[in-house]
């Protein structure tokens, strides 16, 4: 186990280094700098700014400095905001993650139920209804969905507050908007994996045992059918927990997602790098956790270096 974890850490670090390097290169080849503005400041002022943020250093030095700071878990100051990148992430991420957790729960719950219902009643109305719902989730772009939700529930019906982060009422619309696509995806994934499982011999065994359909579903089919969903969960959690630009700006959620867009638009170099690193680490971590969960779900799977018995 320890060896396995160690090996994962080594490969993760290597991947991280590659990502930082690539981002650094692309980022600096994009025209425009963090301090360009409509009103051009005198050269002396620009000189001070560049000196302060070390943009006068040669690229290799900036790059090495960044790597060294990274090693100390310091992602540097934001060039645009009066906050450090660490602060921005630690303030935004919890909000995005909370909302993301709600959204993933909805997606998982609704997706699994829809998928199971569709598979269980294959080619009957339940199947068609569930799959039509899933298709809807697939087919509406998030900015339109968000806008429509707000228009209907906040503007017309006035059932929910239009925006901002507060009580549960504030989480309803953004969570729905965030979960539409993953719900649809999980529902379809669940349906096909459930159909696959339902054809397995052990399901027939379970029926021959005289088990009720509910018991077969819960005790024999569900766990086995959930495995492909578990694989998808790693990237999903990584994507949803780090926030969505559209949902966060439309519903005025103070999360992390917006920064993935505006950091680039602002050429906020440290923030771009910081977010990339954070996302990559988080994704790798989630995938690692998924592997562990998988091990729990499927006793046949063992970690590569942990062959017992």
């Amino acid at each position, binding site marked *: 186990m320890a060896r396995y974890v160690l090996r994962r850490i080594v490969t993760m670090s290597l991947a991280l280094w590659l990502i930082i390097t690539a981002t650094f290169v692309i980022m600096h080849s994009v025209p425009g700098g963090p301090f360009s503005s409509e009103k051009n400041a005198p050269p*002396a*002022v620009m*000189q*001070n700014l560049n000196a302060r943020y070390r943009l006068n250093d040669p690229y290799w030095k900036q790059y090495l400095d960044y790597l060294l700071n990274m090693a100390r878990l310091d992602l540097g100051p934001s060039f645009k*905001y*009066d906050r450090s990148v660490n602060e921005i992430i630690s303030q935004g991420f919890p909000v995005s993650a909370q909302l993301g957790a709600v959204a993933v729960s909805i997606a998982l719950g609704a997706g699994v139920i829809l998928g199971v219902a569709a598979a269980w009643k294959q080619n009957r109305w339940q199947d068609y209804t569930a799959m039509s719902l899933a298709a809807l989730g697939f087919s509406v772009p998030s900015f339109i969905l968000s806008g429509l939700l707000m228009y209907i529930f906040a503007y017309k019906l*006035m059932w929910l507050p*239009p925006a*901002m982060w507060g009580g549960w009422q504030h989480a309803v619309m953004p969570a729905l908007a965030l979960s539409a696509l993953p719900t649809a995806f999980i529902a379809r994934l669940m349906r096909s994996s459930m159909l696959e499982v339902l054809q397995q011999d052990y399901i027939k065994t379970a029926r021959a045992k005289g088990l009720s359909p509910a018991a077969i579903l819960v005790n024999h089919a569900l766990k086995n059918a959930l495995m492909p969903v578990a694989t998808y969960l790693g990237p999903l959690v990584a994507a949803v927990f780090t926030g969505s630009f559209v949902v966060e700006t439309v519903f005025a959620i103070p999360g992390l997602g917006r920064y993935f867009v505006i950091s680039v638009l602002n050429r906020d170099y440290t923030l771009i790098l910081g977010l990339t690193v954070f996302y990559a680490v988080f994704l790798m971590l989630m995938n690692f956790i998924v592997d562990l969960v998988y091990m729990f779900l499927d006793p046949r799977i063992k970690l590569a270096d942990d062959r017992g018995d």
Partner: protein
Amino acid sequence: MRKIFLILAALLVIALTGCGGGKAGEAAGKAKAPQVIRYNVCTEPETLDPAKSTGQPEGTILTNMFEGLVRYGPHNEIKPGIAREWNISPDGLVYTFKLREAKWSNGDPVTAKDFVYSWLRALDPQNAYEYAYQLFYVKGAEEYNSGKGRPEDVAVRAVDDLTLEVTLKAPAPQFLGLTAFPVLFPVNPGVDRETRDWPKVMEKYVVNGPFKPVKWDHNQKIELVKNEKYWDAQGVKLEKLEIYLIDNIDTGYNMYKAGQLDFQEEVPTQEMARLKAANEVKIFPDASVYFYRFNVTKKPFNDPRVRRAFAMAINRGEIVEKVAQAGQVPAYAFVPYGIPDADGKDFRQNAGNQFFEEDVAEAKRLLAEAGYPEGKGFPRVSILTNAHAGHQKVAQAIQQMWKQNLGVEVGITVQDWKVYLDSQDNLNYDICRSGWSPDYLDPMTFIDMFVTNGGNNDTGWSDKEYDALVARANFTGGQKARMEAMHQAESILMKEMPVMPIYFYTNPNLIKDNVKGVVIPPFAVYADFKNAYVE
């Protein structure tokens, strides 16, 4: 055109009638409504450090928390702030400010030393504040900031606790007004020395203005409450000012409709027609100009006839009415309305808004004269704009007008904001959308842009006579001569036309009817809530 201005002026008066001081006091006395205003400034501020701030949203928030030496009144007049009175030497170089006995929100007295400390802090090259150059009028300031001089040589001096003496390197009538804005605000030296990141920590944040901050929820809102230690606390009616930081205007609009906002800085364009018809939107003057730059360093816009032809071949009235829709004023001059002339009247009104006329026939003639009859043989050129829906709409309307009126096919190039700035700075464009808002209420902030190699010229245009006129205006103490020089400069600019004015901005706002007494200045700050109240 004149008519439109009058309407605008009337609007301003209507909007500001509620702001009369005496009436305000009475109304507030009777008011039962809770004195809370919820205002959306439409963006997360980059910083709340006055010296570091550069934008209007930051300026707006800071102006409600701090007070400089002076403060703008409801009619754009300069009123005493922390300075009780001031004296300017006849040569316009030495300013002596007498401070009143004001207090910081932590109880410390506000002294002249605080100003010295704050200004030197703003100029410190180590701090690298972008807008430090607003202090470059002060003798020794630029030298210190560029590392060539010492802080002791910056000519700002505390004569005693309540007397501040500033010496400028050249006469600059706009300097007094600048002291009303963030970079020149005082900060509390004790707090600044003790807690370097006080601008981020609301518990440590110490102010000397009408409101003090309690909470800053990033991308949500900043909560301000009345600062009881403010010298004019009596005049402050509001108990609480909630500044929302919602950047999606549509979302803000929905919140306004749902009764969660009282006031929003911006109005969704597609709502404008309906809101105007229903009288729900209030339009304030804005001393800014919307214009297109021409790249005069290369064909075809190196020919002033082509530039004039292009400027004459669009229908500004239609653009303002159908596209921009916020009651903007078509511009046939460069300096906007709302800037005082030497006689105290309006600079624009004095010179008129008619340096040229829209005349398609004349435009065609000019274009033919330049060698492109009916647009034939005209090189492929393109309008550069940043990726903003409104600008793209205007560009498309203009594109069609040029095609129809001149027979010239013009492309549109949309770039991301920073790339666009880069292209504009490096003259990588043919025609470039631009806008300019004043740093201070003086024509100079518009006129000095276009001096040869000026940092914000960005057209490649150069004219010796123009440069001489700007220099004369800059080094003449007398307002009359200064203004005269600038009027002349503007007429050269409009003859040569390196820039094509399109319209003068307005500032449309969504404000609930029961919100009174808000001052909405035409530049630098969106709204001053010092005397605001809820009816």
